[in-house]
Structures are given as structure tokens and as C-alpha cells.
């Protein structure tokens, strides 16, 4: 659950400085989020897919992640096609044969070309950004991302919070997993009832209480090693030459897509 399946690899993207990759991922995401027409959005999706291909990411796992992301997109597909005026593509209802209480008037819906286009645009953009994000940020482990955050000039408290939370997450997750296993062995099968809710609340409460106790012990361990209210960061070695160039190329591509999107209506293209 807490593994980082894309972070292991030896592609050029895996080896690049996480700072450069983060900046590139952010620029790409912002540019792609601002796109308004399907052509550039499709190109953005291709760019994201190309980056994943370059990083040689394992396809089955990549598709599983994409499927999870598209749950929200699928939810939007239930509404967006019917929510914009335009040329009708599909009409559901009205249902003249059915009594009014079973199929009231508002249940009759019309899917329009504009609505479908909007849903398609959202799908393209969403997947484009996620693919680029996996290829750029997912190819570093989270520890490296945390260090990159600090060295990009963000507040060191924020980076430390990210790094320490990530470190402890594994300890707490294992603890929770053992509690759940113990409940399972004692015949616990969840259902929609108070016993289930109480059991999960007890487990969540126990995880919190044990974390609170651990925080005390970790605090002691820190003081014993001379901690006096100040964290000192180790200097990290600089990234490889060419990483900045790599980031610059990706940012330029994203900017070009955005420019095309803005200039497209002005040029009168379809």
C-alpha cells in the first residue's frame, strides 16, 4: 500500500535531480490545467504518455493507478454530457408509458455535443497531468522528493514535516496492520453496524494513542542526541549536468501547448 512502485528504475528520468523534475512537473501541470481545447489536451496526454514510456514504467501498475484516478472522472461523465446546451446527441426520456411519479419530467436528459466535449476535455487533461506527474515525481522516492522540497526554497519545517510523517507512516501502518490481523483472527467481519464502527474506532484510537506515546519516546531519543530545538540539514550533492536542460525542455513543451491553445481560436482553426 505504501510502496513506491515507480521510484525504482534506471532510466534517465529516474536518475535526474528531483528538484528539476518537480519544477518541470509543476509547470506541466499548470499549463495543462489551463488548456481549453481538445487538440492541445490530446497532445498533452501524448506528452505525458511519452514521458512514462521514457521512464520505462511497469505498464500493469501504471494502468491500475490510472484506473483509480479515473473514478472521479467517470463520476463527472455521469453529469457533464447532459449539463451544457448544444446539439443533442442522445436523449433519455421522457418516458410517456410510465407513470409520472416513476419518471418525472426532470429525469429526461439530453446529452449534447458541447457536454461530451467538455467531459472529454476533462478526461484528457486529467490523465495527461497524472501521467506526467508519475513520470516526473513518481520516479524519485518520497524521501528524495522531501529533500528536493527543502532545497527548492520551501520552508524547511514543511519539508521536515513531510519527511518525518513519511518515516513514521510505515511504523504506524505496520502497527495498524497487526491490529487488523488480530481482529480478523478473532472472527471480526465488518458490516454496517455499531459493533463494526466501534471496532474501527477502537483501532483508530489505539493507533493514535500509541503514536502519541511513541512521539514521547522519539522526543526523548532526539534530546539524548543533543537536539535543542533546531534541525540541521546535511548538504546534498548537486544533480547531474543536463538535468536543468531536461526540465527546461519539458517546461517549453508545456508552454508551447498552452500557447497553441490560446492562439488557436485567434487563428480561426477548428
Amino acid at each position, binding site marked *: 500500500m*505504501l510502496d*513506491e512502485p515507480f521510484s525504482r528504475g534506471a532510466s534517465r528520468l529516474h536518475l535526474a535531480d528531483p528538484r528539476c523534475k518537480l519544477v518541470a512537473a509543476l509547470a506541466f*501541470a*499548470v499549463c495543462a*490545467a*489551463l488548456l481549453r481545447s481538445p487538440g492541445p489536451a490530446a497532445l498533452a496526454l501524448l506528452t505525458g504518455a511519452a514521458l512514462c514510456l521514457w521512464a520505462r514504467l511497469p505498464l500493469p501498475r501504471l494502468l491500475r493507478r490510472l484506473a*483509480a*484516478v479515473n473514478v*472521479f472522472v467517470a*463520476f*463527472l461523465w*455521469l453529469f*457533464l454530457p*447532459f*449539463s*451544457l446546451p448544444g446539439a443533442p446527441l442522445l436523449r433519455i426520456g421522457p418516458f410517456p408509458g410510465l407513470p409520472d411519479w416513476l419518471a418525472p419530467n426532470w429525469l429526461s436528459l439530453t446529452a449534447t455535443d458541447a457536454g461530451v466535449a467538455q467531459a472529454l476535455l*476533462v*478526461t*484528457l*487533461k*486529467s*490523465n495527461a*497531468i*497524472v501521467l506526467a*506527474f508519475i513520470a516526473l*515525481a*513518481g520516479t524519485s522516492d*518520497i524521501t528524495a522528493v522531501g529533500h528536493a522540497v527543502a532545497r527548492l526554497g520551501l*520552508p524547511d519545517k*514543511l519539508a*521536515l*514535516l*513531510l519527511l*518525518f*510523517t513519511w518515516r*513514521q*507512516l510505515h511504523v*504506524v*501502518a505496520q502497527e495498524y496492520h497487526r491490529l487488523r490481523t488480530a481482529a480478523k483472527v478473532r472472527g471480526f467481519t*465488518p*458490516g*454496517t453496524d455499531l459493533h*463494526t*464502527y*466501534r471496532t*474501527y*474506532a*477502537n483501532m*483508530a*484510537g*489505539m*493507533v*493514535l*494513542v500509541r*503514536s*502519541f506515546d*511513541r*512521539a514521547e519516546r522519539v522526543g526523548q531519543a532526539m534530546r539524548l542526541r543533543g537536539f535543542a*530545538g*533546531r534541525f540541521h540539514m546535511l548538504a546534498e550533492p548537486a544533480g547531474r549536468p543536463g538535468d536543468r536542460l531536461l526540465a527546461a525542455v519539458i517546461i517549453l513543451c508545456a508552454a508551447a501547448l498552452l500557447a497553441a491553445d490560446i492562439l488557436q481560436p485567434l487563428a480561426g482553426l477548428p
Partner: protein
Amino acid sequence: MHISEGVLSPAVLGAGAALAALGVATGLKRLDYDRLMTVAILSSAFFVASLIHVPIGPASAHLVLNGLLGVMLGWAAVPAIFVALALQALLFQFGGLTVLGVNTFTMALPPVLCFYAFRPMLSGPSRLRGGAAFACGFLSVGASALLTAAALALSGEEFSAAARALLLAHVPVMFAEGVVTALVVSFIARVRPEMLAFTSTAHG
């Protein structure tokens, strides 16, 4: 609950990012280095708790517990939630860089309000504790759903139907959250009452 990338309008994304930045900065300013590790460990515990899926009839929802997080951490809840959402984006690709601001704001504003509204009732020796804890869980998830729906609706007329459905789908989740939050608070009050008096920030 997390809006994915590529959905919201630039104005909503920008406003969310600005408000989240303000909240994170405030939270970090009030969080001193001495308590940073404790906040990190508690955030990881809340993160793990949010991986618990509780059945609600035929469906299921994962716990959020952001109201309780807010009551315990105060303003530090904002950077803690920001970090949790960043980790979720990195681990599961839920949310992402451009929506991190909006998602942080929608998830973290209700907890901060809960801190001011319910903290005294939860940490004091109050007979109202159970009710307050239920309200804290119920309202904070409800408010988060409302803010998320608002972010969608403000992004364009075409999203308003989806926003209403999102809000409606959260009603059973609000009840589940309320019940579980009340039970968690009762657990902590019985097992480790000192924990409800923990303060993560130097001033409030």
C-alpha cells in the same frame, strides 16, 4: 472527496492555492521545532486512520477524521493536511500539484474551525463530549464536502449537477464520520485523556 487534476477553472485553482498557502504559512509559523516531530507522528497516525474503510450499507467510505485532527493540532492541522494530501498524490495519484491548494483548503478549513468550536468541549471534563465529538466529525466532513462542491460549482455551470450529487453522496458519510469520531474520542478519553489536552502550537 479529492478533485482530480484538469477539472477546475484557473480562477478556482488560483484562489485555492493562495488560501492554502496562507493557511500553511500560518500553521507553520505557530508550529515550533520542538513539537514538529509529535505533529508528524500524529499526522501519520491520522493518515493511517484515513486508510480504514468502513462499510456504509452496500458501499464503503474511508474515514477522514479531519475534525478530530483539527481539534488536536489546531492551526498545525493545515500543514499536516497539506503534507498528507501531497503524500496521497505521490503514493496513489489522488489529487495532484495544481489541485493541492484547493484540496488543502477544503479539507483543512473545517478542522481549524472545529478547533475553535469544539476544543474546549472535547478536552474539558464535559458531559457534552460525546455530542460535541459527533458534531465535530459530522460537521467537518459536511463542510469539506460543501467546500469541494462549491469549488466544482464555481468552476462552471456544467459542474453544478455533479456538485449537488457529490454533496448528497456525503450525507451518509457525515453520519458515519460523526459516530466514529465520537467513539474515537471516547476511546482516547478513557485510555489516554492527556492526549486531548495536547497543544501543538505555542499560542493556540
